[in-house]
């Protein structure tokens, strides 16, 4: 499993990475500190899963999701957000996010996310 994690907060990103590594030590994890960097890495590495923060300077998470969906490459997309408003969630879902991960991220949430991914891939 290859996972691309985009988050402009170094701290929050490193924790998300830490939990992924704790649960799936064999997963390859790629980190990006911004939207543009994330899109570049996506094109180059073609990850199985993308976890992206939504609120970021310059290129935001929803722009990332839009661009990545436009490539047509299959990828399990998870939007990381503190905004639980139904309307916002629906908008992001319409863009092509498979799942929401509500902030703050925790080990349990990462576990659930991986479960959801594996179910999805199993289908």
């Amino acid at each position, binding site marked *: *499993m290859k996972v691309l994690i985009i988050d*402009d*907060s170094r701290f*929050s990103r*490193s*924790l998300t990475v830490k939990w992924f590594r704790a649960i799936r*030590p064999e997963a390859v994890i790629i980190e990006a500190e911004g939207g543009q960097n994330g899109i570049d890495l996506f094109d180059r590495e073609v990850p199985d899963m993308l976890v992206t923060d939504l*609120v*970021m300077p310059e290129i935001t998470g929803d722009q990332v999701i839009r661009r990545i969906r436009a490539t047509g490459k299959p990828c399990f997309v998870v939007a990381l957000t*503190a905004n639980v408003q139904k309307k916002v969630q629906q908008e992001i879902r319409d863009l092509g996010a498979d799942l929401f991960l509500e902030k703050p991220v925790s080990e349990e949430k990462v576990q659930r996310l991986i479960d959801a991914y594996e179910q999805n891939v199993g289908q």
Partner: protein
Amino acid sequence: MTDVTDTGSAGSAVSDYMQEMLPEFVAESRELLDNVEDHLLNLAETSDSDLIRESIDTCFRNFHTIKGNAALMGIAAISNLAHAAETVLSDTRQASGGIAMNHRRWLMAVVDLLRASLVHLTAAEPLDTAAFESLMQAPDSATHSLDNLPIGFMDATSIDHADQLPLGEILIAMGKLNREDVAEALRHQRELRPKVQTEQRRSAENQNRNDDNHFIRPNTSLSPVRYKDIRVDVDKIDRLVNLAGELVTVADMLMHRGNDQINDQLNRLVGDLRGVAMSMRMVPIAVVFRKMKRLVADISQGLGKPVGLQIRGEETEVDRELAEQIGDPLLHILRNAIDHGIETPAERQAAGKPRNGQIVLEAEHAGDEVRIIVQDDGRGLDRERILIKAQEKGLITGTEKLTDEAVWRLILHPGFSLADSVTALSGRGIGMDVVRKNLEKVSGRLEIRSVKDRGTTITLRIPLTLAVIDTLLVGVGDDLFVIPLSAVIECAELKPNPGDRPYTGQIIEIRDEMIPQIRLRERYRIGGTPPADEQVVIVRTDTGRLGLVVDRALDKHQTVIKSLGRLYRRHREFSGVTLMGDGRLALIVNLQQLEHSPDRRGVPSDL
């Protein structure tokens, strides 16, 4: 507004698990708060609606990040306050125009309290719960005062003199307020603070002077917390290192003039100063190695291959930048070692090896570079398999005779994978080419050694990026060059080579050993006639020894490296330039480049 009473976990309650993440949380939060402060100050100084919007957006985003991170840390008080700040900013954004002055001031108070809280957290002290509660109430309490007017509508300079009457008159004229409002507002303002001057706000000292406003100030600078360390801008340290380096040059100039006693003292002081300046950028590599310990344990468990990790030389100091950059490449190498190198326990037993794999992770200083070595006792690289895969990929034709070293280097090509099938566990990894690219960022190189069934050793060699190195000064014609002293083995006189054309000699014989030679005069197309008594400097390189023929070897020299700048970046034959005590320039010879260039055997002079 959010629930204000929940400051429960604000005490010293950061869980053990999260405690190790605290420094990173604190460092990033500080950066974000500094940035918020800058933008809040900008807001007071601009009336450009685009800039205002941008500043508000940035503040919003930063508080948003702090909110999320604080929630991760489980510090509800900070998370809630950041959320309140976010709400205020989000409302402001919707309202368009600008930020109300009382809101801006409240946000400043939030920044101060959060900063103070970071200090408390670092010192494992409880947070100032009262200050949090008071701030959580505050942003909307000061209504209907002059403060509430959006800054964006007004000339910023007028605001700075808000206690002067004309502004009130203007506002009345604009129809923004009636006379009673202004009178009330001014009274309120006088109570709050004698002067509103944005300039003053820049000084931290001033912040304590504002204690009389109705937001309870956290006692930032009154706090008894003592820092054991301070944060210093890396740029400043770099400048210090640079200046210390230049001082070395000047001291060198004095060497030839002043009296000996003063010279000795000066040299010692300058040397010490340089050492301290450089050590400020260094951290022990233990910070990286310790993370690897945990990751190796996780990976080996995940793959069902028990592996013992032995760490050596973790006290080795490396540049901070390097410590940050080296983690990912190391992780990939270690992952590959466990995934591809180390056999399963059953395979190991069958091969007569101990059940548990063994990996050694080692760091050491060697000359002016640091070496990081990853050594496993696995099955080793499979020469035949690599050659087959390389042929499939079209990297080689199959007819070449390749040394082992050249074969191993094939795995560094982009997209090269030895896995036969793509599984969840292997073969999808970021390849070794990414490791190589990461290394190039820190000007490092990678060496691979492998013995079948005995294991693989990967050595990362990275320059210490020191600004000052010891070098040997050599002269060719009127030009000066310096060669890193750590690479120099010896200097000898070049014996005339009768019967051969003097300028095309390829091999020289030194102490019965044949060494390839490069004539710097020809290599750098200097021209002129070499003296009869040419000298040769024998240097150590990656693959062996090399003789550099020069007119004369001059002296040891402490060299301050200056980069050649962008214009010359394609001239990789030189790694930089240095200023001599007498004002002349000397180019720093890049030995690796010299060795790897195709015409290393020396070309006949065409000059």
